[in-house]
């Protein structure tokens, strides 16, 4: 158990030390975090909702909706 914790601690410190020692990386991480926020919070939550899922709760309802779309020509 203690050996596992050591391995876990070593992995965590490997990442932390790695991030801290980056020179170009800090600016990049800022860009990545802003980008992920814009993509997953702003875009996904407010602009890219899956209407098919929202308006049709069950899989059967979704099937029926798409069947209507495909055949009501």
């Amino acid at each position, binding site marked *: 158990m203690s050996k596992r914790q050591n391995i876990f601690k070593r992995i965590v410190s*490997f*990442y932390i*030390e*790695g*991030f801290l*020692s*980056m020179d*170009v*990386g800090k*600016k*990049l*991480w800022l*860009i*990545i975090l802003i*980008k*992920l926020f*814009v*993509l*997953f919070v702003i*875009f*996904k939550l407010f*602009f*890219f*909702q*899956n*209407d*098919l*899922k929202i308006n049709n709760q069950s*899989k059967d309802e*979704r*099937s*029926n909706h*798409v*069947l*209507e*779309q*495909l*055949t*009501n*020509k």
Partner: protein
Amino acid sequence: MIEHFDPSLVDWSRSQFALTAMYHWIFVPLTLGLAFIMAIMETIYVKTGDPQWKKITKFWMTLFGINFAIGVSTGIILEFEFGSNWSNYSWFVGDIFGAPLAIEGIMAFFMESTFIAVMFFGWKKVSKKYHLASTWLTAIGANLSALWILVANAWMQNPVGTTFNPVTARNEMSGFWDVALSSTAINKFLHTISQAYVLAAIFVVGVSCWYLLKKRENLFAKRSIIVASVFGLIFSIFTAVTGDGSAKEVAKHQPMKFAAMEGLTQGHNGVGLVAFGILKEYGEEKNVDFHFKLEIPKMLSFLSNYDFNSFVPGINDLIEGNDEQGILSAQEKIERGKVAIAALRELTVAKKDGNQARVNEIAAQFNDPDFKENYFRYFGYGYFTNTKDLIPNVPLVFYSFHIMVILGFFFIAFFMLFLWLGIKDKLENYRWLFFVAIASIPLVYIATQTGWIVAEVGRQPWVIQDLMPVKIATSHVTVTTVQTTFWMFFAVFTVLLIAELKILFKQIKIGPKGGE
């Protein structure tokens, strides 16, 4: 309702998808190729123990890191769009996209969070060989991620290994390996990654030439040029070979795209290959004609079928049909598609009425091999009334294809020249070549983007070849919503691109740091 579909919604949704895919593809190929180039450089370092090679590896690794960081997750937008703008399509493709994309997601997560971390943070913490293995695994992992995306794309161009379930309106995977190892998927993967390697090699040569032009980092630049030129030469030739394989696939499964690539109006035996040509004005009637063209006699027939006298169908053959060659007319395909849609409509009504016996009966019809081969195969054609709508934008496809091919051959010559002069240590005698190398960086991006234009515009009007036209695939969203998000993406991605270029240029100006 489909009859109320808004053409401008389709156009804006397509434009948005094209915009995001093209921006995404600015970042991806450099990541795919540079990963292998730096793995090769690090291998030389581990083999020779020369710290100069470590310095070289670390510099390109920094540029790789910048490109990777800025580009990561830009592809996720495409998945958002599938759900929001293309919900009919997303439902219709069923688990075909789900499986490869899930594998890609899991693989990317594990590879990126482990091996990339070791590659960047592990120089002084793990052994040389372990570090080298991490670099190679990063390169292999990134490329395998691309494999699954390209498998999904290949299925859209040649839908194999699936069965359509009319009750759920979804395609179900009947053979995972049929999908993953279809000849279209293999050729698409090999062609796409090999051109990504060419792009990365040009990038390395171009940046290295900038140093030579500035009379800086001489040894670093020359060594980088030699490694990149060997790598680039091998894969530029390989790209031509896989391009030939891809073209044969297109000729077989997407003959209209193939005809558009060559501007071939009327098919015949012994068709020549248009090496270069200027098309006449292309109006509403979509009549394709040339002001002039340089043709290699009978070569297109040979490249299509390994037979100089074989028949290659033109646009007119595919629209009007050709009994002699066993090609159905577009009108006949439309009629057959309408039969398949009518059967699906009848099933939908029976399902709504709770008539399970009739539902089962019609579902069985969709499983009948004769119905599959003669009617469901043309399902998507049933949504058309005007046969001219089945022709893609010929000038765009034609010019994109020829720009890509011409640049592809230019790159082979480019690498031969740089490799020869690099080995002979005569690069400085031809300083004008440094400008050519730097100018070739945007050219290789043009080549790779035009390649995607050929693949994606060439297959119009289909989102899934012969089964689902783009106009049927869209969701019930307003044009304003798509326009808004289009410009938002444009702004965000442009900012990202500018950020990448600024950081890249700054790092290049700083140059490589000490090897130890």
